[in-house]
């Protein structure tokens, strides 16, 4: 604020001061100030526009059979007769998350076998962490499409589609699943005829997109922001506790945990809250 400067100490300086601040400068300064305000406003508006363009995909608002409502986990093996003591195993995953694919490759078959045998009640919470952190909507789409397959082919078709997604995860983190492959894997997972047509229609219309967004939101609200996470009867598992010194997955111990529901303190991930499913 040049006009507020303290008066110069002597006459010579006063002259310099006056020469440096001619009356005309006030006007041009004012113009610069106005230009600056306009520029700042433009930058702010551009930032807002860029931010509002990064939105989750929208489609139908169907709640899959097996989920109690929006934001609630989806019971994948709802059609399987459960053993009386079957613990609830909750899996939080993102089909585009590389660590999810690693965990799935090691522990997925054990989870799937237990779910099919009714030894566990398997609940999925679909998350879209990669969409959020790296952009795009492919995680959300993949989960939608998996639910489309489940709606037509039940848990066994879902399990196959689920495997296909993780085994064919885009090599580079952040890349999207090609739409043609997402659609094509419905047939690979065993859907045919009208069921295949119905699943494909569901993929195109995005029937479960809002539901997938709702589970992402509710899980984040509950404090589960990352993936993958597995909870047994609401207790968060420390998955690394099942890695042996030979860097192999101890599947016997893992199977015991998920089918008995007994989680030791070393097997508990204390950085996560407990959940209810």
């Amino acid at each position, binding site marked *: *604020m*040049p006009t*507020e400067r*303290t008066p*110069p*100490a*002597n006459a010579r*300086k006063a002259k310099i001061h006056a020469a440096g601040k001619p009356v005309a400068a006030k006007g041009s*300064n*004012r113009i*610069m*100030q*106005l230009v*600056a*305000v306009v*520029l*700042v406003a433009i*930058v*702010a508006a551009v*930032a*807002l526009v*860029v*931010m*509002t363009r*990064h939105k*989750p995909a929208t489609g139908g608002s169907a709640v899959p059979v097996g989920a109690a409502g929006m934001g609630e986990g989806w019971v994948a093996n709802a059609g399987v007769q459960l053993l009386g003591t079957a613990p609830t195993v909750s899996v939080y995953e993102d089909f585009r998350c590389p660590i999810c694919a690693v965990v799935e490759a090691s522990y997925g078959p054990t989870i799937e076998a237990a779910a099919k045998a009714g030894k566990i009640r398997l609940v999925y919470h679909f998350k879209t962490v990669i*969409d*959020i*952190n*790296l*952009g795009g909507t492919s995680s959300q789409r993949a989960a939608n499409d998996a639910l489309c397959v489940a709606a037509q082919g039940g848990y066994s078709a879902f399990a196959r589609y689920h495997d296909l997604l993780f085994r064919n995860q885009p090599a580079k983190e952040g890349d999207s699943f090609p739409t043609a492959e997402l659609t094509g894997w419905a047939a690979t997972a065993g859907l045919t005829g009208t069921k295949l047509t119905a699943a494909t229609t569901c993929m195109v219309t995005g029937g479960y997109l809002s539901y997938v967004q709702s589970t992402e939101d509710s899980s*984040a*609200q509950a*404090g589960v*922001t*990352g993936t993958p996470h597995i909870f047994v009867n609401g207790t968060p598992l420390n998955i690394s506790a099942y890695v042996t010194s030979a860097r192999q997955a101890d599947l016997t111990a893992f199977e015991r945990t998920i089918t008995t529901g007994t989680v030791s303190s070393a097997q508990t991930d204390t*950085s*996560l809250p407990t959940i209810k499913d």
Partner: protein
Amino acid sequence: MTTSEELAGPSDAARGRLLDGIGLLARLTLGVVLLWAGLAKVPNPQASVRAVQAYRILPGGLTGPVGHGLPVLEIVVGLLLILGMWTRLTAAVGLLLMVAFLAGISQAWARGLSIDCGCFGGGGLVAASRTRYPLELARDTGLALGGVWLVWRPRTLLALGGP
């Protein structure tokens, strides 16, 4: 500076210049950091919302508006500070932001949450070993002190001033 001026005692003008210079440094530091923090959040607004949620302070309905609004506020305040417009007002807003960040980070630390502050994008839960609360608090305290300086003495070198 002439000898006669020096003989007249410690020059108020020189002292003023020095204080103006300190003000400029405080203004640019706070402004650049705020601008950088705001810009870093723009590409991933959902991550910004998640970072706000990770503090577990605000009710669900407010995390969206704050997650989206905060980056824009940071950009505007940062730019105005860099330009030196309405310095006292913009520094006060910057100071308030820093106080809010300090409170948020402190409560997260006190409650045993393991989160990244999400100050420059990212954020959310991290492993307990990856939290950096002391560093984050020290940085924001320094920036807050810059804000205090500018509220107390908003006159700085190379300021555009307010229209």
